[in-house]
């Protein structure tokens, strides 16, 4: 398949694997990218230029916007940093005792949530110093997402916790994922009805938050990001999920280099993009869903990695309604 005209590569990409790409809250213009080269970069997507970058002491694993000009990021240096792109000042907000894997912003409560391999979630209020709370999750946190005032936490041991951010004393729900293997990513439906999980072995599950058994019955999982090559089934991790903010459809990106868009409620695949040159590590739809950022980096962690390593690249692709809108309206 030919690369379509609606797609282009960002100039001056990171020097190491891309850990996270995130679009700004209200515009298609700005993209925040965290990388293993220990930098967080702000790209102006419309002019295809690098606007800013700032450094951590070690690889950055996640970042997020809180508003158009403020970002938060954390990584292997255990430190949560914030950066103001207007004044280009960075602030160390606080630390975990192990690497910070996830940084999320809850706009409903105006707080930042970090999840770490030290098994804790911390809440940070941008207006006050220090963490507002630290909450044990009993396992290393692998992925997090906010869902309104709820927080979804996917940890090692295939656990999923649903918390109310306003009262983190007790979890609303403690679940075991319906997937057999390690969770790679968790993202909530924009309509807050449920969430999507992806696993390290080519599977994606759609689950519902409502614990009513009738609703729970509707949850399901499906195989994806697998390649059949002369009798060999290659199973790849599904690294990234990003929801279309309007249509409630979602895109998944795997280490096979493919990006699919799915209609979770109707169990349909809407489209598959061409294969990218290496693993897709992160995806992000823009605020109106018209643009998808695709972070591509070698991420197989093989014992004998290819030499030279595939280049790290961020693709910006405009997504049409045809590609992202459910074909059938659910009855």
């Amino acid at each position, binding site marked *: 398949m030919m690369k379509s005209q609606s797609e282009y590569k960002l100039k001056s990409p990171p020097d190491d694997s891309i850990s996270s790409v995130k679009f700004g809250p209200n515009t298609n213009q700005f993209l925040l990218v965290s990388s293993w080269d220990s930098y967080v970069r702000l790209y102006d997507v419309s002019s295809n230029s690098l606007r800013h970058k700032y450094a951590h002491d070690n690889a950055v694993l996640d970042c997020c916007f809180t508003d158009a000009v403020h970002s938060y990021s954390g990584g292997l240096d255990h430190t949560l940093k914030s950066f103001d792109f207007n004044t280009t000042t960075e602030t160390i907000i606080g630390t975990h005792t192990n690497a910070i894997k996830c940084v999320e912003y809850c706009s409903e409560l105006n707080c930042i949530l970090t999840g770490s391999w030290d098994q804790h979630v911390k809440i940070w209020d941008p207006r006050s110093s220090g963490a507002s709370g630290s909450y044990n999750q009993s396992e290393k946190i692998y992925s997090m997402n906010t869902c309104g005032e709820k927080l979804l936490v996917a940890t090692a*041991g295939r*656990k999923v916790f649903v918390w109310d951010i306003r009262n983190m004393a007790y979890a609303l729900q403690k679940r075991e994922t319906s997937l057999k293997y390690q969770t790679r990513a968790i993202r909530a439906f924009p309509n807050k009805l449920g969430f999507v999980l992806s696993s390290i072995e080519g599977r994606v599950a759609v689950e519902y938050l409502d614990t009513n058994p009738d609703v729970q019955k509707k949850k399901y999982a499906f195989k994806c990001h697998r390649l059949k090559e002369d009798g060999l*089934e290659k199973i790849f991790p599904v690294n990234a999920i990003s929801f279309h903010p309007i249509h409630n459809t979602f895109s998944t990106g795997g280490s096979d280099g493919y990006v699919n868009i799915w209609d979770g409620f109707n169990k349909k695949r809407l489209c598959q993009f061409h294969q990218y040159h290496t693993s897709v590590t992160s995806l992000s739809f823009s605020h109106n869903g018209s643009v998808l950022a695709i972070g591509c980096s070698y991420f197989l962690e093989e014992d004998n990695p290819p030499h030279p390593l595939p280049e790290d690249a961020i693709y910006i692709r405009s997504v049409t309604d045809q590609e992202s809108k459910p074909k059938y309206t659910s009855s």
Partner: protein
Amino acid sequence: MDFDLSKENIQPLRRGRNPHQLEMALQAQTNPEYQVQLQQQKQEFEAQITNYQGDDPLEKYYEYIAWIEQSYPKNGHEGNCAGVLEYCLGLYENDPRYTNDIRFCKLWIKYIDSFPNPPELYRMMKSKNLCTGFADFYKAWAYYYEAAGDFQSAHNVIEEGKANLAQPYNELEDALKHIITAAGEHSLFGPNENRLQAKRQALTSLPSYKGKVNHVRHAGGSQMFGGGAIGVSSNVQLPQVFVDDGAGAGLSGGAAPVSIVTVAKRQEAPKENTMKPGPWTTVPHKKRVLSNHKLVPSFTLHEDESPQKCLPPNLPPVCLEDYANSSLKVALTNPSADDERPTNWHGYPKHKVYMDLNVEYSIEEIRALRYLKKEVQEVVCVEEEMDSILIEDDDDDCIVVVQDPPQMEQQGMFQIYQSPMAVNQASTIEIAPNHAVSHSPWKSQAEHQDFLQNVFSKNNESRLSNTPKFVIRQDSPAAPTGLYNLAFTPEASPKKAPSTPFEVYEQSMQELPPLAPPNGNAMKTTFRTLNADEVETGSRGGMDGAMAAQPIDGAKPSAVIPFSDSSSSSYDDPEQMAELLDCSSTQQFNFNLNAMRVSTPQDKTSQPMHSTNDQLESARKALFSKELYQCDKKALSTILEEKSYVTSSSSSGGTATKLSLYGQPTKMNTISEEHNSYLEQNLKANEELRRSFYASVMEDTPTPPVPMQYTPIHSPILNATQPLSQVPSDPFKAKLLNQLLDRVSFPGVHHQGFVHINGNPRLMVKKEKEPVFIGRDKYLIEKVLGKGQFGTVYKAYNYQMSCTVALKYQRPPNRWEFYICSELQARLSEHPLRDRFMDISIGYFSDQASILVSKFEPFGSLLDTANLIKLLPSKDRESLCIFFTLEMLKIVRAMHAAKIIHADIKPDNFLVMLTSCNGLALQLIDFGCSIDMSLFPDNAMFTTPISTENFICCEVRDGQPWSYHTDLFCVAASAHVLLFHEYINLKKCGGRWSFTSRLPRYTNNELWNLFFSSLLNQQLGIADLATLERRFTKELEETVRQKDLRLQLVSLTNLLKKR
């Protein structure tokens, strides 16, 4: 009558209205005739005023104003009441005739009422002494304060009036009372608008004084006023009271105002031009109005989010969630058993992600490891440069199986170790102990798992128990230097002792350069830690040198004769060790010990010549010899035992263990805090054992706390099954187990398959099919089958026997399991179920680890099978459950008959195996914490709680002592897992335990209820297994069942074989 039409336009008057006048006034509004009449009257009044010649002109004015009030009920402009009033007051303001006239006063009151700031004007009147003799004046003044809620000022005004003796005085007194009541009411009910309204009207209306000066009735104070005044006029508004407590003088700047009227008018003056305070920019601008287009900035303005959305203030700072009961598996299917189809290829490093059954790592973590490693390596490099000793990290593929098989040629050794060059370097480090920090080549060769654990600091314990410590620190010069001096240049020791270590090194190199490498390397490999901080430097005079010299002295010739299989020489080792213990730290001791273990000195000439300990020595020697001659093997193992104790105690990096065995038994172990309980226990056990060793010679040795007499020497006859006289509470204690093993003089009769090896074979799954030596035997490690708390199970291929085996690697060595397994096989030698217990064909034991070799069962554990059964239709499961439960019952019954308690029965510890006739059967494995009841008195009971989650028997829950109960309970719990696919949940009602799950309706509830209730409730005695077994057998013999079971077994077998 159109009175109704216009009544809202009639201002009520305090004294009422003259109906005639009112009618005329109302008529006048519509009827021009009346209007003319009014006009005529008005002119009449005005004419009267103009033509008045008497001495009371105010009279006419007063009448006129009163008339206007009546005739123009709207109180509007048409009557020009205010204008007349103002004119009149201005006219007579300074007329001394009227300074104290009640009419004048009334007019003032009426006039002032129309101004926004009456108290000011009153104050002015007061200062001009105008009308100050009237109670009305004060009452009116006070009223405005009262209306503003300022009762204090109102009270003050009235008090002032009283002080001025205003008339009528009693009215003032009444007014005072009213104010007080009003203040009370105000504070209770809030302002009373109606009362204030009434009062105001009373004050401002003009009574008619026909010639005489009198007063009209006043307002009814706090009483409601309805009566004459019809309704409430909305015309009158509450005045805006400006409260200015300052003196009234500051009213107008410059000259003091003369006329009150002018002041009042001045107040009024800006009225027409009133501008409300506010931003002047909002005043419409003509230009702005004209320009119609909206300004849009070319850039987007960033607006701060409104901060109304925020975290609740009472955010709990920590999470109170209790995860104690959450036990989730890392992966649903056992990664080693399932999903390993050769046709599958995984796009991620699965062997790293699922390295362990209970721990998983994400790709990011594995990658992070690389990043963090990079950092560490950088740091290491810097350090190394500083110390000017650079050692290549060249042994990534270093095989760490260190051993001294008697037949192994030196050549073989060289294959296993690295190049001689590296070896040389290694020995360099050893011989140069004064370098502050030196890195052994193992520094960065951290085993992957170790590294992971370090990096993620998952658990410090395992880090400690996994002994590899790579940094050699030797910065206490005195003792070690002496040691080395003696070691390599014995003849020159007195002179060389104070020399620098470097010289020593050179010298030693001169003396034995070609021979050193293999020897040094061997030493290197086996010892782990030399921690200078803990090196004992206290010298003991000449003794130190002499004794320290021996082992290394022995090591020197050993380079020539490297290996020896003579048991007599190995017997020498512990003796020397013990001496070393006496004089040096454990670290040094360990060092030397390891040196010796490889080199195994032959020369008995190096027998110690000691001064003080001769006696003890000989006594001990006798002791050892005796043992030795009793049974060669046994003695060997005992000695080994001793070795292993010492190493295990010293291999724990952080310990400062000062062992002084002969002289000061009280100066025993100091255990650093960071120690995990296991090591501590181990240490104590060692101490205990050592003490008991010398109990015969040491009178003051404290008796071991174990309630039994320990006899260090047993006859082989004795140790078979003589039970202890007392039952310990905890049958799992390492100390106890060691004692018991000694008691049965392990391995003794169990020598079959017991192989002693040296060093710590490191088993690793390697990509390139490279065999690993364990002892003399060659294995190919294929993969990790499972990892538990105490060890790892590998699947391996045995080249000698050409079969696939399971290797259970445990560290520290677990001799107990070997003992139990061989005991079981022996005790059940005639039993048909003998093959249902794990048979250890070979057990390799070193001082650091043990490897048990048993048959490999490809079908995995019962837990895997349970997960498979889960996939079957629910109705088909029961037969299989009954079948497997029966299997378990049979096995446990046989085991109990052999007086063994497994104590860790769970589905994971049953292997599913294929019988000879292609049927399925279970095999019980993992006897690591089993109990041999034959070593305890009959009916022994234990009290220590079992901690295996979900498998804690009801007796333990009740706090009762237990013995065989636990196994039976665990069988029930395992059956529960099979049946319900979840761990058992217990409830207790009415003193009986039961499980919370619900049996499906199609199952044989009677059978299962009997099974569970009897196994969960054994308070009165151990459940009758035989009966249960019969019931289950009977159930299975039913034709329906039989058929069903056969079908299910076939399908399960197929599933297991992955067909």
